[in-house]
């Protein structure tokens, strides 16, 4: 099956800034694909080129087998784009918003109301968009992107400024969207989000893709030590170091005793042998570590 999105060597510059500098990737049918990167990495421009909103300086993007540029009327009903929680008509209620978007695609009002139910907004249907909570507004904007049942959905920072409950809540919705066989492309700078949702991610910085692959594979590639910690006072530092074997670094801050090692087996067995497993936590590297190791740790405004 041909890829749903195929991007080859995209380049785009504005005035003196190179926003996208030779980006290539494919997204397959049914995949949940994440584009990660710090602000200004070129994520949004890449997405805009794929959506057909901008013309690349060079390279090309193909979406569902059709060229993304120039704006293709046949492509538009097959893609859904969620931009921002505020991209609504002023002073319309949630129901009026989604019905308006539905009719732009020739979708009947009944389907629009059903979609409102799918994202759990039936009770707020009569509330004006400006009065919805952050999470509700995001749900509405996702519903508006899905109302015409597109094959391919673009989500741009969908959990931007949400509180933890609303984020987890939205993740469930996003998983549902993807499990129905749609292809989803997500941009985010929340690493936990990408790790939890995406089948595959591409990490971008300075207009280039630095690394791409399934989150777990990227984390493994990083080959970082595992951090094993237990309650302090169960075992001495020296004994822990002896049991964990060579290459393990042991620290004890009086709250937790932590062993950092690339070989977790002997360390865990040693702690178990000393009956020192109370409060056990095993932390591997995360996508965030991968991200920071690729993009650097210096602060960027």
């Amino acid at each position: 099956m041909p890829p749903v999105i195929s991007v080859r060597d995209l380049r785009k510059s504005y005035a003196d800034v190179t926003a996208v500098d030779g980006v290539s990737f494919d997204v397959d049918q049914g995949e949940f694909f994440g584009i990660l990167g710090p602000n200004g990495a070129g994520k949004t421009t890449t997405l805009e080129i794929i959506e057909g909103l901008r013309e690349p300086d060079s390279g090309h993007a193909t979406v569902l087998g059709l060229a993304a540029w120039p704006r293709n009327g046949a492509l538009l009903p097959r893609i859904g784009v969620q931009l921002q929680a505020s991209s609504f008509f002023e002073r319309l209620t949630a129901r009026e918003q989604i019905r308006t978007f539905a009719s732009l695609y020739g979708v009947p009002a009944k389907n629009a109301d059903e979609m409102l139910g799918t994202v759990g907004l039936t009770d707020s249907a009569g509330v004006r968009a400006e009065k919805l909570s952050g999470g509700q507004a995001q749900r509405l904007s996702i519903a508006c992107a899905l109302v015409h049942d597109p094959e391919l959905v673009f989500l741009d920072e969908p959990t931007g400024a949400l509180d933890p409950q609303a984020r987890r809540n939205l993740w469930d919705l996003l998983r549902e969207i993807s499990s129905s066989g749609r292809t989803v492309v997500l941009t985010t700078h929340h690493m936990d989000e990408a790790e939890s949702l995406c089948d595959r991610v591409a990490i971008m910085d300075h207009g280039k893709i630095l690394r791409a692959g399934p989150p777990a594979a990227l984390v493994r590639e990083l080959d970082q030590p595992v951090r094993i910690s237990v309650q302090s006072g169960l075992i001495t530092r020296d004994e822990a170091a002896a049991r964990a074997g060579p290459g393990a670094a042991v620290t004890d801050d009086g709250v937790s005793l932590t062993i950092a090692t690339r070989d977790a087996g002997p360390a865990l067995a040693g702690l178990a042998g000393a009956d020192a497993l109370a409060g056990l936590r095993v932390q591997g590297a995360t996508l965030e570590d991968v991200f920071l190791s690729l993009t650097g740790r210096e602060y960027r405004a």
Partner: protein
Amino acid sequence: MRGGGFASLSRAMFLGFIRDRTALIFSILLPVLFLVFFGSIYKNSSAPEISLIEVGQVRLLSQARRADPGVASVLAVRDARSLAVALDAVRKGNDDAAVLQRGGHIIVRYSIADQTKAGLVNSVLASIVQAANQAASGQRPRFTLSASQVEDKSLKPIQYVTPGLLGWALASGATFGAAITLVSWRQTKLLRRLRLAPIGTGSIVAARIGIALAIGLIQLAVFLAIARLPYFGLKLTAAWWMTIPLVACGILAFMSIGLLVGAIAKTQQAATAIANLIILPMAFVGGAFIPLDFAPDWVRQASYVMPLRYLVTAMQDVMARGEGPSAALPAIGILLGFTLVAGLAAMRLFRWDDI
């Protein structure tokens, strides 16, 4: 599908407008308040009453009022106990003049604080004395004078206040509506969202034009309904229906100015400021607030570059001055010309988003 897009966009824009209190206040309520205010203060201003204080008996005055109902309608007369009291009232401006009679001698004391009134008092009383002298001579007058104004008797202030304020209401409604909608849709990225929907730019523009025209016709209907109340007494002349195409062309012209403002401005505040800079001077110089007939020469000269001038004067012509339908045609042409120029400029400067 294209038709569905147009209809639902129109509906969304219309609901957005009627639910927007600020827009309703500025495009309908405020102009109507101005109409009521100006309509009331200018009411009857064409025949100012003179209030006289009669000190003692002034037989000539009561004779004249009995003999000529015209004189009676212009003069309001009250009595005073003494000359001192009467003069005090005149000095304070409560009354226009004090009158007393000493035998065949009529004495008038007036204030020149209001020179128009002072002149009026003098000429009315002089004519009363003259008429009495002429009657005393027992001869029929050899010469008579009949004077009447060149305008239709019905050209009361409401007849030019209504088209002027309506023109201002239409201009500010269309300009602000188009400018602010464009900027806020660009800022919230709604514009970009619409570009990703399978509808043409034409549908979006057509829906916006349709809504602006609908709002303009609502403004026209509200203005006519209020100005034609017996209290204000607007009388429409034969070709008044030409105001409808005039309003439509005026809306197009000001909407394209608004789109130009919206294309230039980056924020709503900037759009509001620029639109104010265009509309307010135009309202003062273009004949909306101050009738051009009463305006100084430089204002009249400057008004020729303002589209509002053509809208307002043409509406006056067909609505109040009784001119034929063709009187509106030059204005319609000029307004469409403004639409074309501003519209093309707006198209050139148009941006889908802020980058």
